[in-house]
């Protein structure tokens, strides 16, 4: 077995709502292996967003350990963690989350700016990847001048800009119509298959889940099932 890219060991996340303790995650153990395509599913309030934030090292657990490429993130400074996250993990959000004042090209270049990639390399790479998502002719457009599907493709290009090992997508098709959503999922699958990227998708849409190989089902802050063959599971339901 290869070493997992992201490893969660007995992760708890507790929020304090006034004086009431709310356990969003209760002892999660999860290995994300290189090259896998994992879907995290669960009803709203199940803790899947919290889990996603923890897996994407955007948030730190109340208890437990998170290993990113074998490094315990608790030992890293805020800045080092940002650097490591920017290099290793790409994010795709439901609302696209492009920076509104920057062009498509500049949005895709931004993660590389934070990694201090030289300018010429940044431009070349951003153009290459925008072309790969079929936006080669719209690189100077502002996000407001692009359709929802185009914006999400810019976001995908941005997520893959630093050539990360893992891309985390939070309801990537949630704001798109079904045919556009399908196209987005095909692009993601393409990156997974051709480049061997690890993809983690959070969704409540079984159709999306059907693209993946692994299905993690979470309920009340606990993983209730972890199947290596998602399609089979979905079929059985």
């Amino acid at each position, binding site marked *: 077995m290869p070493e997992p890219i992201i490893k969660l060991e007995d992760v708890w996340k507790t929020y304090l709502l006034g004086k009431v303790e709310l356990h969003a995650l209760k002892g999660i153990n999860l290995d994300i292996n290189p090259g896998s395509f994992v879907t995290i599913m669960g009803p709203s309030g199940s803790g899947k967003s919290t889990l996603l934030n923890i897996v994407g090292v955007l*948030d730190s657990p109340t208890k437990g350990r998170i290993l990113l490429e074998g490094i315990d993130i608790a030992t890293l400074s805020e800045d080092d963690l*940002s650097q490591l996250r920017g290099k290793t993990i790409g994010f795709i959000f439901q609302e696209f989350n492009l*920076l509104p004042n920057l062009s498509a090209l500049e949005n895709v270049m931004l993660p590389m700016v*934070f990694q201090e990639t030289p300018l010429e390399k940044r431009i070349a790479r951003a153009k290459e990847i925008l072309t790969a998502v079929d936006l080669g002719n719209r690189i100077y457009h502002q996000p407001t001048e692009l359709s929802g599907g185009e914006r999400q493709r810019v976001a995908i290009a941005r997520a893959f800009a630093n050539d990360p090992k893992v891309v985390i997508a939070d309801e990537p098709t949630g704001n798109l119509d079904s045919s556009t959503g399908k196209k987005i999922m095909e692009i993601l699958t393409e990156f997974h298959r051709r480049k061997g990227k690890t993809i983690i998708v959070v969704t409540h849409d079984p159709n999306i889940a059907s693209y993946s190989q692994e299905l993690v089902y979470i309920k009340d802050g606990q993983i209730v099932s972890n199947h290596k063959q998602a399609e089979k599971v979905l079929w059985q339901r």
Partner: protein
Amino acid sequence: MGSNFMDNLKEYFHIAWRNLKTRSLRSWLTIFGIVIGVFLIISLLSLSEGIKATITKQLRALGGEMVFVMPGDISNPIAMFMSGAKLEREDIDAIKNTKGVETVLTMSYQAAVVRYGDEGKAVFLQAMSWKESIEILENFQGWSLKEGRWPVSGKREIIIGKQIENDLFDKPVRVNSEVTIKGRKLTVVGILNSLGSKQDDTAIYLDLSIYQDITGEKKGTAQMVMVKIKEGGDVNGVAEDIKENLQKTRKRRSGTDAEDFSVITSEKMGDIAGSILAVIQLAIFAFASIAIIVGGIGITNTMFTSVRERTKEIGIMKAIGAKNSAVLMIFLFEAGIIGLAGGIGGTVLGTFLAKAIELYGQVHPLFYFSASVTPNLIIFGLVFSFLVGCLSGLLPARRASRLKPVEALRRYE
């Protein structure tokens, strides 16, 4: 690392610039405080610098080491000039008899209406003991005649400043023209070359005894005395001696030892002018600082609003790998650019006002100003306003940089 670091700063500046371009009018209004502050600094400092330069130039033109004696107390200049006090004949003799004194020039001055043809204009009359003065004026102060000759002592003759020739009256004043002052006819015998300042070029110069004839001022007195000391003498020592002699004379005459006269050297005169201007400049700076502080608080305020509005953007940037310092720099640049914009506006307006006043001084006699808008002053204004902007943006930018990515992303969800 080094070149990449600079490259990154450039990139952050670029992002900050893009953010600003799409900002609302509200944000741009906040630059106004900075505009006003920098405007005050640039216009007033350039004018006071200009005045300082003019005074220094005139003092230097006096050449050599001179001692000035004036009635009244120099530490209270307004009272001194308003009092109309005079130096009496005994005072002047006391000065003349002081050891080390070579020449004593007595002078008086006042504004009077000068009639020429059908016109009457107020002109500054400056009277000097002509016999003693002429050599010093020519050799040490660079006076020269454009045409005509110097007046002869005791005759009703005057010379005129260069600008009186053509500018003051509708009809040009020429050598041998006759003007009337207080009912007495005087002949113009010479026209001076420019003396370098408006005030000097619009005055009329005449012998002190003739001046006292027509104005009724007591013969042998003077409003001011200029003393040229003997070659190689100690200016300060002679000044002290003059002071002592004057004190003795006054005591003998009026029985008091109140020191109602001032003896100062040309060097000290420069110091006094310099220190008065320094106080004025300090006051200007204090007022302008208040305007800039208010402007800075405005920037802080708008930046806090901006951080709040763009919390999610900050979260996104952090999620895709922005270090705290990157977010800090972007917001600092935004605040700095706002400050700089205010600085540019203030500098342009300030330069404009200073130059306008200078221009007004050139067409209006008795109102001489030069504005000294130096590149240094402009660079200072711009750098200063950029730094004020950055400083004002420091707290909001720090708040932005310390936001936790997950909290920033969750906001507005």
